[in-house]
């Protein structure tokens, strides 16, 4: 299942609801384009909802890292919401759990940007 991305605004934060796979050729480029588009429009708070992302490969992990650094370099913040067990385990294994701000609850995540 390819990646689908739905965008919504909550208290000035852009929430991207991702669904499907983030892999080379199946979502990495879509995610990159979505992040760059938001950053270019001056968005300073981005929350990636990964609750329906059931598969990420090393390319997808790299894309998450690139999204994080792209945002940070533009004085924006990118945080993660609702990791599935597989994605959680991958982030722990690769120590990326220490890089990202990760939340289980959307309200807490939104509040953390303030």
């Amino acid at each position, binding site marked *: 299942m390819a990646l689908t991305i739905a965008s919504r605004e909550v208290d000035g934060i852009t929430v991207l609801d991702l669904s499907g796979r983030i892999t*080379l*050729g*199946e979502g990495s480029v879509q995610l990159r384009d979505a992040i760059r588009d938001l950053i270019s429009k001056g968005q300073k708070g981005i929350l990636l909802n990964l609750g329906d992302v059931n598969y990420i490969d*090393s390319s997808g*992990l*790299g894309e998450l890292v*690139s999204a994080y650094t792209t945002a940070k370099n533009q004085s924006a913040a990118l945080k993660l919401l609702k990791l599935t067990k597989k994605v959680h385990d991958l982030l722990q*294994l*690769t*120590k990326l759990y220490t890089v990202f701000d990760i939340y289980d609850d959307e309200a807490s995540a939104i509040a953390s940007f303030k």
Partner: protein
Amino acid sequence: MESVSEVETAADKLACEAGLDEDERFHVTMALREAAVNAVLHGNEYDPSKQIALCFENTGDALVFTVADQGKGLDPETLPDPLAPENLLRGTGRGIFLIRSFMDEVNFRQLHPGTELTMIKHLSPARDKT
């Protein structure tokens, strides 16, 4: 990339037939995906004149997967550690780390030209009885 999906599907079929549970099947298919992507992207560098050779086998004791490319060759010892603090924010370099994490044995062999990667997942005796 369609061929990579086919590799994943074939690996999952073998893992499923061998009785691996969902987590183990996920590990096996991800390792094979990473190996296939490396072979196509970094090994053969998308050169359509170069081929990938695959061999999947259930020996009874283990699942043995071999992926070989026709690229310039790879020295796995030269790969940077993706867990090192200075590499954590790199966008690439985690594929072989994931393969090593998810499989029980991983061996590289230089083919001149190319690299052959053998990945082994041991099958437990308890699983064979079920």
